[in-house]
């Protein structure tokens, strides 16, 4: 494994680090600002009066006026924006129109269910894709085993092309209906987690293992792998100690987008399994035109995606300072 230590002070690589941190943090801040602004603008971009749309055309005008006031929609736009950002900094996201309770409360009660399938899926993707991709690379390097290579790219290519929610339906049909080992839907015991996590894992794992294979092949052709052979190191050390850290950094860079889309993938998978997480919440909120709730969930998902990308970038930079810091 790559050791995750920063340079001791006084070394030559100090200034590129500062530059990298500054650039990357700036990009995160700009993206977060764009996200907040977009979430704020959403309610104003909806054609017509959002409150009237939400409450229906037959709603009492007095009620509409009261709700408009409670949402702050009767204030000047700039003041509304200021209030929105101000409240956000205090963790207040307004009240849900439908449920009549704070959006932050709904989110904090639903978020754990989403994380409980997203985090295991994330871990499982890494645990599956890296060994599978590396093994495939080692077995097919230098044009060996052409058929094995075709089988690998064929299978992973197909799995990578199947959308998560359709895979989820297929998994239910196979493992909950035809061969009932797992429950069909909803959250319950440990066994109810298996299919949702699997549905989230398979597609990104297939795609990532292809990336890992290509990256492994690249690393195996590097000069330092020849040096490792010149030291007559056993294959285990050559692959695990010398190749793995180098392909991890590049694979993670390419796989970074995969992880943020994993979070979005939970939306569909949760709806297939009637999973009580944020994904079912946002779909329900959109259908019921509960705009403050949609705003809140969009903010959570968007911020999570940005933070994951940021974390991956930083992790890669720490593990492989040479290429990343100089490059970006």
């Amino acid at each position: 494994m790559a050791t995750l230590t920063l340079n001791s002070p006084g070394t030559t690589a100090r200034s590129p680090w500062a530059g990298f941190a500054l650039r990357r943090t700036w990009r995160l801040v700009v993206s977060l600002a764009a996200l907040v602004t977009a979430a704020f603008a959403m309610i104003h971009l909806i054609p017509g009066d959002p409150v009237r749309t939400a409450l229906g055309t037959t709603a009492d005008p007095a009620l509409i006026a009261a709700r408009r006031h409670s949402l702050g929609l009767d204030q000047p736009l700039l003041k509304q924006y200021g209030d929105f950002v101000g409240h956000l900094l205090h963790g207040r996201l307004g009240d849900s129109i439908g449920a009549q309770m704070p959006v932050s409360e709904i989110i904090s009660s639903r978020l754990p269910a989403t994380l409980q399938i997203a985090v295991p899926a994330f871990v499982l993707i890494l645990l599956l894709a890296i060994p599978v991709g590396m093994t495939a690379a080692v077995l097919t390097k230098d044009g060996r085993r052409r058929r094995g290579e075709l089988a690998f790219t064929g299978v992973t290519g197909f799995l990578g092309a199947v959308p998560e929610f359709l895979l989820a339906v297929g998994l239910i049909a196979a493992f909950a209906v035809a061969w009932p080992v797992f429950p069909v839907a909803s959250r319950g015991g440990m066994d109810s987690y298996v299919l949702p996590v699997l549905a989230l894992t398979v597609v990104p794992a297939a795609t990532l293992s292809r990336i890992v294979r290509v990256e492994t092949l690249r690393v195996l052709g590097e000069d330092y792998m020849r040096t490792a052979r010149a030291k007559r190191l056993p294959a285990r050390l050559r692959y695990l100690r010398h190749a793995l850290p180098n392909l991890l950094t590049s694979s993670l860079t390419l796989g970074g987008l995969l992880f943020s889309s994993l979070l979005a993938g939970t939306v569909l998978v949760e709806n297939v399994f009637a999973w009580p997480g944020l994904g079912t919440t946002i779909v329900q909120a959109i259908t019921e035109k509960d705009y403050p709730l949609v705003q809140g969930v969009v903010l959570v998902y968007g911020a999570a995606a940005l933070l994951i990308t940021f974390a991956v970038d930083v992790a890669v930079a720490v593990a492989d300072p040479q290429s990343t810091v100089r490059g970006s």
Partner: protein
Amino acid sequence: MPHQDQDTSLRHRLGRTLRTPIGVTALTACLLVVLVAVFGPVLLGDQAARIDTDAINRGSSAAHLLGTDQLGRDIAARVVVATRLTLRLTLLAAVIGVGGGLLLGVAPAVVGRRLGRLITATVGVLVAFPGLLFLLFLATIFGVGSTGAVFAVGLAMVPPMARLVQNLTASIAGSDYVAAARILGVGRFKLVVRHLLPNIAEPSVLFATQAAGGILVAFSGLSFLGLGVQPPEYDWGRLLNEQLNRIYVNPVAALAPGAAVVLTGLMFGLVGEVLAQAGGRRAPQAREATPQQVKPQDETAPDGDGGALVRARDLRVTFPGGRRAVRGISLSIGVGEAVGLVGESGSGKSLTALALADLVPHPGRVCAGTLRFDGHDLRADPRLGTELAMVFQDPMASLNPALRVGRQLAEVAEVHLGATRAQATARAVDRLGAVRIPLPERRARQRPHEYSGGMRQRAVIAMGLMGEPKLIVADEPTTALDVAVQQQVLDLLAEVRADSGAALLLISHDLAVVAQVCERVLVMYGGLIVEDLPVAQLVGGAAHPYTRALVGAVPTMATDPGTELATIPGRPPEPGEAGAGCPFAPRCERARKRCHDDAPELAGFGPGQRVACWYPVDAETAVAPAQAASHGAEATS
């Protein structure tokens, strides 16, 4: 115009690709989907809409292949009929996505600089968000329903498409003919239509096809969530939405629309693949020629003493297709001896070194009559890493960037000498000190990127010193370094040799370096050793015309800066094209008929000197090398 050439050849290539199995499959799948979309609603529309209250929620049967839904409608017919709406909405969204992407992508190249930057930055921020999140955001704004979904899905595709187009136009907008058009005062609109669009059309179409599969999936997802197509209309996603809660009763009814989405998605993928192949964006599978049988070539064993450290006889390195990079050479290196191996690039000198260490890259193959090292057969009993140390050309690449330098040294002791981790680390620090790396303890904890080039090469040498090296093979160890650092590394090699008593095989194209460090020189040409001589003989005593020419091509301090440097006319032979005669004959001004027909063997010439030449140069008949070279061209014709 460059794009017109591309167009005709693209059409040609497309025709060819369509005749391959993958092309036929893609074309068939396309036709099938289009036929179903056109005729499905006509033929099965009534059946799909017929409400049958006697057959509600039936399972699969002969009358209803996939069963019936809550109103008794035939699900199989509904899946077929839904093809048209699904495809229509997918294509509509694709048109919005591609159009918007092109507009935003080309814009930075034609609008003002500041506005262009703003657009680029906005697209950059937008692509950072997952597509589905953007999709849900747009779906909220446009509201639930088909029209809103088409806009949402289409607009969600705009940022990635715009990013691609931006990258493409940025490279084209900087090209000469666009600059020329600008200078000629071609209007912005014309510039886009005439110059930019045709040149980005091919990759854009490719991307759009592949994105169409994504759009189909996204649209189905949206309809499945209940945010897309609303009843009584239905697409595949909507059907899935309606049938999912009955999956326990009738799983095929839920699986069928899903399978339709996957298969159609694969079709888009196939079409994209065909376009990519036609556009030459996929490298054709390299076909490897079967290795040709190499005919044995007789070569007498060297008359080296029995105490030689390295003895190689009839060493060959071959590549598939019959390319012989090293064509059966014999060499020996004495204990503690410093031998230089010189030659032009492609002469086989580096491969000879790698063959000794069994590091020849795939698909090269090494075979040898004898390959002995310190009394052992190297192939059965490798001494690499402990007694045989390697130093490579590019120190920037030969150390692992992810591992600390100390660790990379220490593992040799751990693996081969049975040292504990602490012992190994202590030895690594000691060895780093031995190659004059200052503050070795601190340096051992650093990673290679914190080292300078010269220091990295020292670290590689120190790596070889972790064991007890008897031979150091250094392949162009100074070529990649600054001139000032080169001398330090050479001095270090000499010092290490003096301390450890190790022999040295120094591979170099630089005669001056070899003359400085080595005692004996082997000259390689066309995969063969053409001369073996003591360093002292190099100037004035070389017998092979090639060695003479090589020496003549080296400037010395005594060379008058005004005189033109001698060059060797012609080029060295490619590994595949070696003929029957002497490999140097085509470039040799002394060559006669025999040289072109028969290959001379390495034979004794003087004390400690061997040469492979029918007409070696001796001191009396010697012509000035520069003169020889200038006549070389005539000799070949």
